């Protein structure tokens, strides 16, 4: 075992990913199924929100992932720009569509949840708006990858876009906060009150917390499995491309 950078070797990464993929997938499936079944069938209704509280098991994990996937892309893009490890930037490329799906789930479940609670499908609530903007950033990032043929050029450009985009996404978050105070309840999940169940008025209490935690773990593991799989796919595509180019050269 050497340094962590050894795993940036495409061959080594592929081998490791292939080795780990079944286990991560199984763990992801177990925790997701358990968490969702537990949440859906075996938790009570919230006294104010009724059964809609069950949407939390999808909404909160997907929203967390939507942000963290972008954060992971930011880190791997930086690694590419600094250390020039191809696998790193391919992991960012592989993660982006997963991030899109997570953002979509967060937006869709948010709208569906908002409908009965706020009486409308969509409000320009700062947090919803911020996710919509994040969604646009994901689309732009993916579109830039698609538009550029030379893989190294595309890697550099998308990495810079990811970094600049992160700064602007953060700025937008504060801008929309300033622009409209929201209806959203605070980020209640991780607060101390949530864990101890001390304040059931606003915060998510114990009975909801454990299945939710399981769902979050499930989403994270699912993401890890997808990134392993999709990064390996990107490595294969890249290798195929290189081989074809060599064939053409003679």
């Amino acid at each position: 075992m050497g340094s962590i950078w050894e795993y940036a070797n495409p061959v080594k990464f592929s081998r490791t990913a292939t080795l780990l993929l079944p286990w991560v997938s199984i763990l992801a499936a177990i925790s997701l199924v358990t968490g969702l079944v537990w949440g859906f069938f075996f938790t009570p209704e919230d006294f104010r929100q009724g059964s809609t509280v069950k949407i939390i098991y999808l909404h909160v994990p997907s929203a967390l992932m939507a942000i963290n996937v972008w954060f992971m892309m930011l880190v791997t893009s930086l690694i590419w720009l600094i250390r020039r490890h191809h696998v790193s930037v391919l992991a960012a490329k592989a993660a982006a569509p997963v991030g899109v799906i997570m953002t979509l789930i967060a937006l869709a479940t948010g709208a569906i949840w908002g409908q009965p609670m706020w009486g409308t499908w969509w409000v320009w609530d700062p947090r919803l708006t911020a996710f919509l903007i994040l969604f646009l950033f994901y689309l732009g990032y993916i579109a830039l990858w698609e538009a550029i043929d030379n893989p190294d050029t595309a890697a550099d450009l998308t990495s810079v876009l990811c970094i600049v985009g992160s700064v602007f996404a953060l700025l937008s978050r504060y801008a929309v906060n300033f622009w409209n105070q929201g209806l959203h309840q605070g980020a209640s999940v991780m607060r101390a009150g949530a864990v101890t169940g001390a304040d059931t008025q606003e915060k998510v209490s114990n009975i909801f917390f454990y299945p939710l935690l399981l769902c979050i773990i499930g989403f994270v593991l699912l993401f890890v499995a997808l990134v392993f799989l999709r990064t390996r796919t990107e490595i294969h595509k890249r290798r195929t491309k290189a081989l074809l180019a060599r064939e053409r050269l003679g």
Partner: protein
Amino acid sequence: MMPELGKYAAEVMSAYAASLFLLIAMVLLSVRSARKARAELAAAEARKNG
């Protein structure tokens, strides 16, 4: 076995349906493109080696 979802049944069910659909679609698409990329690579390697 179905829990009583009360008056919000439609919302809860549609949220779960939409999310699961998206997740499963993502997984299936990823698996499919992984298979395809693997097959193409194998074909290219075979041409190269012989």
